[in-house]
């Protein structure tokens, strides 16, 4: 695929079946470079399954597409190398220090020793975390942990970053500060693919898609979606769209 195109991600007719169950049912979409793309959906709508395919962790049953310019069927290893991933559930090793975490993930993504050292200095500087570099990651306040894991997910300078419910359970201010980091990254040209349960965060995305029963039931900018459904906010849009769901996982 064309690496210099305008799209960071192009997905056509993606389907994933488990036995007779169709988790992802013929979805097509594209994400532009530098875009913040919100990937919404009710529990069990097929979000996680789709995201696993896009991250190169699972193969689609049918369909084709590229992520960061690599084929989702044939170049999964390359995809993994060129994307960043962060989830609230797992992102840092709590029993390693800040520095060790950076080192570890730098190593995992194949950065050389010198590059890792450079990155460590740069990152500690940027995050203003020099004083805590030898603190165990588990002992950091939640907001710091988040900043750190976000930066670590970007350590290998990926073109796309996948954020899986990055702000669940975080206090309102930290949550917003985190989104400011997402904006910063997006302004540098990094494509952001994010899932969330907070509907106000859906408003922060350039475009959102809402998955219902394995299909994409709605996809547009938050503004146009609100207009289309005559809704006051994304929460209402979501309830209208996802409220039509038929299947229970």
């Amino acid at each position, binding site marked *: 695929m064309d690496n210099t195109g305008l799209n960071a991600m192009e997905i056509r007719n993606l389907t994933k079946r488990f036995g007779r169950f169709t988790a992802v049912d013929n979805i097509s979409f594209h994400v532009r470079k530098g875009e913040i793309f919100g990937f919404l*959906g*009710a*529990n*069990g709508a097929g979000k996680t399954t789709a995201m696993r395919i896009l991250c190169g962790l699972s193969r689609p049953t049918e369909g084709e597409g590229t992520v960061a310019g690599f084929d989702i069927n044939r170049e999964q290893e390359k995809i993994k190398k060129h994307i960043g991933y962060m989830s609230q559930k797992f992102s840092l090793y709590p029993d390693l220090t800040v520095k060790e975490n950076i080192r570890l993930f730098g190593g995992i993504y194949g950065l050389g020793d010198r590059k890792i050292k450079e990155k460590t200095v740069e990152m500690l500087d940027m995050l203003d975390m020099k004083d805590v570099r030898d603190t165990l990651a588990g002992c950091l306040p*939640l907001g710091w942990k988040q900043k750190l894991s976000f930066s670590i997910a970007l350590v290998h300078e990926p073109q796309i970053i996948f954020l899986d*419910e990055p702000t*669940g*359970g*975080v*206090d*309102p*201010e*930290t949550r*917003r500060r985190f*989104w*400011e980091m997402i*904006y910063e990254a997006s*302004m540098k040209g990094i494509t952001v693919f994010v899932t969330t*349960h*907070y*509907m*106000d965060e859906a*408003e*922060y995305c350039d475009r959102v898609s809402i998955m219902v029963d394995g299909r994409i039931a709605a996809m547009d900018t*938050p*503004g146009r979606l609100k207009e289309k459904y005559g809704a006051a*906010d*994304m*929460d209402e849009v*979501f*309830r209208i769209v*996802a*409220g039509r*769901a038929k299947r*229970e*996982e």
Partner: protein
Amino acid sequence: MYSIEIDNISKSYGKTAAVRDISLKVETGEIFGLIGPDGAGKTTLFRIMTTLMMPDSGKGRICGLDMVKDYFMIRKKIGYMPGKFSLYQDLSVKENLEFFATLFGTTVEDSYQTIKEIYSQIEPFRDRRAGKLSGGMKQKLALCCALVHKPSVLFLDEPTTGVDAVSRKEFWNMLGRIRESGVTVFVSTPYMDEAALCDRLALIKEGSIIGTGTPSSLVKAYPHRMLSVKAGRMYPLLKKLRETPGVISCFSFGDSHHVAYDATRTDSRSIVEEAVRAGFPDCTAKEITPGIEDCFMQLSRKWTTQD
């Protein structure tokens, strides 16, 4: 008449204080919300109130019974739904429900009226293993199990975490109807938008209560004026607004920014004018009443600076 009364409860794990000197009173028949982020000490407070844990200091009464001395009596009178889905994944819906009914010395038939409304939604799946249910259905089952012995106080620890917006809405509707039957509901949540659905609230941060009251009294106590500001380029606007004189704080809220400002130093018009001058010609602002989330952010900042 208070269903829950706790006085100066503290609890630490080693050196970390999980709950610091918390006192609360919850009236019978109200929905009381404990609002705060993860790690604020919500779960510890729940465990103390449900007699699962002893406080290091302080005392309390649940349903008029002493939390420490009469713990066994309290256990008969309360229903508890822990934060994590805590039912037997390898047992079916029916088996789970029957098991918990028996534990409390009752049967599903006896309390059918109490749980009917919720149970009827999952009854079609009664032979399905609990582990194979969707998030929303798991939550309904857990609620049924917590209600099956007709408790007078229901403790729900983050019942809506990880549940999608549609199911969350449904869940709160159910809570409303449970309250109507006279049950006191003590519920915690990290979602600020759910706060408005409670009769009274306590905002918790790092183990301390930073504010209590009805949703409207909390909003009334908000010390600043607030604007909702919009423009085409939202993120640059955010940065600009923060630098504007007289602006106390600025955070994004959905499709607009909430700007708290000091009315003695500036007003809506000059803030907009400043933004327009800085290259946001389409900037508009509208005076709004702050929400619970704004209150929480303000109180938590105040609390942090005091500390």
